[in-house]
């Protein structure tokens, strides 16, 4: 009968696993006695359950196998491993330093890259509805390629809400530039008009006030920094703030809320929020039903993300509506982008509410981190293999007294993890004190490594195991396989011929070569960009934005009197600031170009050169139907005789009367675009630009500002030097250069450290050979050659691979960053290779010197 009553195997196995052997019999006997009894009394199922409960309850110290400290020799061996590790590390301080230093630098870099990537992926991820909120986007063909825009037609939002039951909320967004006035504080600000749902869809909690306040058309909600800017630390709820739209429109808003400070990792933000219905106040011509007007964003919330496909399919009807009205701006389709992935995909969406400025970092930084880890690991492997020659006897003894190969492997791996752990501590220190503050400062990003971040700890453990194992497994396998008898007979020769060592060294040379090429190329590019022509004369040009025609006239007459001013000009658009788009209608296609509306003095004032044709005539009426185009446009149209061409824009015809040099509207990140100039209507002037006499820029700027303040005390001055219209661009360029230099420096450091360690140990291993050579009369030349020979072929092959690879990699990198970079020449690569060869020779020659100075007698006496 008892035969059927079986102890549950798995539970039994568990018991057996934790229970120490000398108590197993009596303890399990007790449990079995209970089990059989219960099986008879209350059935097998319950008995099994109780058995399981007993086994779990018995899992207590009295039953456990004792920790090995007391009983097992393993721990004693580990203590011994630890001791020998420390000894071998102190006996070979150079190798240990190279290993620990290299690994810690690499780990430090990994940590910094981790913090960057973590930051990047957390951008705008704090919104609770990030997976339900979508940005409406438009796909349209522009100049032959489909482009996705983050804009949407004005009426779309309202229609979506009515037509789709799946959409729970819609928020339209339109940003308007306004003048804010509170007491004596007057500034230009961006006011964001939106629907009250905006604050429900996005997670922007309010510090003061209620989000419902946006329903009231007279309410305004401030961001935390804006609240401080206008009201200091006071609670501004209930205060009135005057908003001026252009010259005519004005409205008093009541502060009804202040948002909490935005999280560090945010892109979508606002300074001021007001109800969308105010659009009519801001712009009397605004028409909610006008398909030709585009909003900055239309956000929708779809509670069930599954529904988005159905909505997408239903968008076809709007396409027809849109294309009926907008003939010049036909669209292909509507699309949606979830908020959760908006930042990462924003690079491919033009004019989106979010943007992607971290893409280069996201691509390049992890590659760099990986390369550095590889280099450090290869250093370790090389040094470990070569220095194990010194530990052969130890391994032999261990094997004789009973260590099998597995034990030796474990010993070396444990030693390695210990070393990596040590390196990791130093690496963390480096990351916290050096790398992270540097990168955060350079890139102006709020990067941090928070000890409360669980993923960080997992990442650290991952790095520890990865580096520890990656660098340790090969030396461990390699060293452990030697035969005891051969060790003691002294017939093992190695280190010289290990092919892997050479491959690793070669790899390091390649990486070093690429980074040096990068550093040189970026330095060159920076110099190039700083000296590169903008296509017009930006030095000495000043500009200010103006509110309307009468302001222009007053300021114009004031500035024309100034003896330092060479010319003054008015325009609707302005280089580096504002441009508009025009669509040229050609017989076979449409062609979108940039358009700047200017007056006849603009070219002179901005220093833009005409290559052929003429300037606009001073009388604005005479050139209504003329345009001047830039070279890029001529080339794109393949016009042989540009001055004979006539183009159609908005069904009006224009004669080309002149061609200008190409110029850089935006920074050098973007390419030169085909652009046309036409005469601006005087009522549309929004900019006044001034050319100052050379050397009098400062006085002219001060005069311009003083005139403005005197004429329009109510409106903030918004002008500046033309040289400053690309904010941040030159800083960016300088940062990239510095960054590349630092990376190159670390790569050189790691690879030359590795090389140095390798050569030193190699030479040390051949002391006897060199001593004999010297004793037999060999000169420095002979010894130098015998050392060099070992590395010559390797270096040549590595550099042959490295040179083209550097060219390709750095070229791709620069082309990704800049639209029209300085072309990478072979000189740069050659320079890098020469530099690398120089470093190689320097490292090797230190050892040659050492050998040539040493006495052969001492060398022969060792060992």
């Amino acid at each position: 009968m008892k035969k059927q009553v079986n102890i549950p195997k798995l539970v039994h196995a568990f018991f057996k696993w934790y229970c120490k052997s000398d108590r197993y019999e009596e303890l399990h006997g007790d449990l079995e006695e209970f089990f059989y009894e219960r099986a008879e009394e209350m059935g097998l199922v319950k008995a099994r359950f109780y058995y399981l409960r007993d086994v779990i309850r018995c899992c207590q110290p009295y039953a456990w196998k004792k920790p090995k400290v007391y009983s097992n020799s393993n721990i004693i061996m580990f203590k011994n491993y630890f001791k020998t590790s420390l000894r071998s590390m102190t006996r070979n301080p150079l190798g240990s330093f190279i290993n620990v230093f290299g690994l810690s630098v690499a780990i430090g870099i990994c940590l910094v890259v981790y913090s960057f990537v973590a930051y990047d992926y957390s951008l705008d991820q704090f919104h609770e509805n990030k997976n339900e909120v979508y940005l409406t986007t438009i796909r349209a063909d522009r100049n032959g390629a489909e482009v996705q825009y983050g804009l949407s037609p004005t009426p779309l939002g309202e229609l979506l809400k009515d037509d789709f039951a799946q959409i729970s909320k819609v928020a339209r967004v339109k940003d308007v530039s306004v003048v804010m006035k509170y007491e004596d504080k007057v500034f230009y600000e961006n006011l964001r008009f939106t629907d009250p749902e905006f604050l429900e869809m996005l997670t922007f909690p309010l510090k003061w006030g209620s989000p419902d306040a946006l329903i009231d058309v007279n309410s305004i909600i401030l961001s935390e920094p804006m609240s401080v800017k206008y009201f200091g630390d006071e609670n501004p709820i209930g205060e009135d703030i005057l908003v001026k739209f252009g010259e005519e429109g004005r409205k008093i808003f009541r502060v009804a809320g202040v948002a909490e400070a935005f999280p560090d990792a945010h892109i979508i933000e606002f300074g001021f929020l007001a109800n969308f219905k105010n659009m009519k106040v801001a712009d009397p011509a605004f028409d909610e039903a006008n398909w030709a007007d585009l909003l900055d964003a239309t956000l929708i919330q779809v509670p069930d993300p599954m529904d988005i496909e159905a909505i997408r399919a239903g968008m076809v009807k709007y396409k027809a509506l849109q294309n009926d009205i907008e003939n010049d701006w036909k669209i292909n389709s509507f699309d949606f982008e979830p908020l959760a992935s908006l930042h990462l995909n924003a690079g491919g969406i033009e004019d989106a509410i979010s943007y992607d400025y971290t893409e280069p970092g996201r691509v390049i930084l992890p590659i760099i981190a990986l390369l550095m880890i590889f280099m450090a690991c290869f250093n370790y492997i090389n040094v470990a293999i070569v220095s194990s020659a010194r530990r052969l006897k130890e391994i032999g003894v261990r094997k004789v007294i009973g260590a099998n190969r597995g034990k030796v492997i474990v010993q070396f791996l444990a030693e390695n993890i210990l070393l990596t752990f040590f390196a990791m501590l130093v690496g963390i220190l480096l990351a916290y004190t050096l790398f992270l503050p540097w990168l955060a400062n350079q890139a102006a990003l709020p990067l941090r490594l928070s000890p409360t971040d669980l993923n960080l700890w997992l990442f650290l453990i991952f790095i520890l195991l990865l580096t520890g194992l990656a660098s340790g497994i090969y030396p461990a396998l390699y060293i452990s396989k030697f035969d005891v008898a051969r060790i003691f007979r002294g017939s093992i020769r190695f280190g010289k011929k290990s092919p892997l060592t050479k491959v690793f060294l070669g790899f390091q040379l390649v990486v070093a070569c690429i980074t040096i090429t990068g550093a040189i190329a970026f330095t060159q590019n920076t110099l190039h960009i700083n000296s590169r022509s903008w296509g017009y004369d930006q030095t000495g040009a000043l500009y200010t934005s103006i509110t309307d025609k009468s302001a222009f006239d007053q300021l114009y007459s004031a500035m024309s009197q100034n003896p330092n001013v060479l010319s003054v000009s008015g325009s609707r658009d302005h280089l580096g600031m504002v441009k508009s788009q025009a669509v040229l209608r050609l017989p076979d296609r449409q062609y979108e170009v940039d358009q700047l509306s200017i007056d006849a003095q603009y070219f002179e004032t901005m220093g833009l050169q005409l290559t052929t044709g003429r300037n606009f005539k001073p009388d604005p009426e005479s050139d209504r139907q003329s345009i001047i185009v830039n070279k890029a446009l001529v080339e794109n149209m393949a016009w042989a005789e540009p001055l004979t061409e006539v183009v159609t824009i908005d069904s009006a015809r224009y004669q080309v009367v002149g061609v200008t040099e190409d110029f850089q509207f935006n920074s050098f990140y973007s390419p030169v675009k085909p652009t046309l100039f036409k005469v601006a209507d005087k009522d549309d002037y929004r900019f006044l630009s001034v050319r100052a006499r050379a050397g009098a820029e400062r006085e002219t700027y001060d005069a311009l500002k003083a005139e403005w303040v005197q004429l329009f005390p109510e409106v903030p001055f918004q002008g500046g030097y033309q040289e400053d219209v690309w904010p941040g661009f030159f800083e960016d360029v300088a940062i990239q250069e510095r960054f590349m230099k630092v990376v190159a420096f670390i790569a050189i450091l790691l690879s030359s450290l590795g090389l140095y360690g390798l050569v030193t140990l190699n030479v040390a291993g051949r002391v006897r050979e060199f001593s004999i050579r010297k004793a037999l009369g060999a000169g420095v030349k002979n010894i130098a050659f015998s050392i060099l020979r070992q590395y010559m072929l390797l270096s040549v092959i590595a550099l042959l691979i490295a040179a083209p690879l550097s060219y390709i990699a750095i070229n791709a990198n620069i082309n990704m960053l800049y639209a029209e970079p300085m072309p990478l020449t072979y000189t740069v690569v050659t320079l890098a290779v020469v530099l690398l060869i120089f470093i190689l020779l320097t490292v090797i020659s230190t050892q040659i010197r050492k050998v040539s100075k040493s006495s052969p007698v001492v060398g022969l006496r060792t060992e």
Partner: protein
Amino acid sequence: MGRSHLGEFEELVLLTVGVLYDDAYAVAITKEIANQSGRSVAVSAVHKSLYRLEEKGMLKSRLGEAESKRGGKRKRLFNITPFGKKAIDESMDLRVHLRNQISDLAFNWQAD
């Protein structure tokens, strides 16, 4: 060497070992305590106390016979040592002593 006084449950186990003289092993002790005190007792708790008492020198043990009802395994039988007896006696004395010191007034709830 740990505390030399007895915990409440340890004392119960020690006493029960004495009661079951010559057949005191974990299963029997567990059942005995459960029967006499009416509370449910886990065998693991008994194990724990037995080994600790043995460590303290209040119990000594030997292995018994293998039995089929235990899956052919031997059981560990426990006996009280003189030191164990001393510990029980001291503990009992202390309790009696303390009990006797309680004045009747303390039990006179009608007074107030």
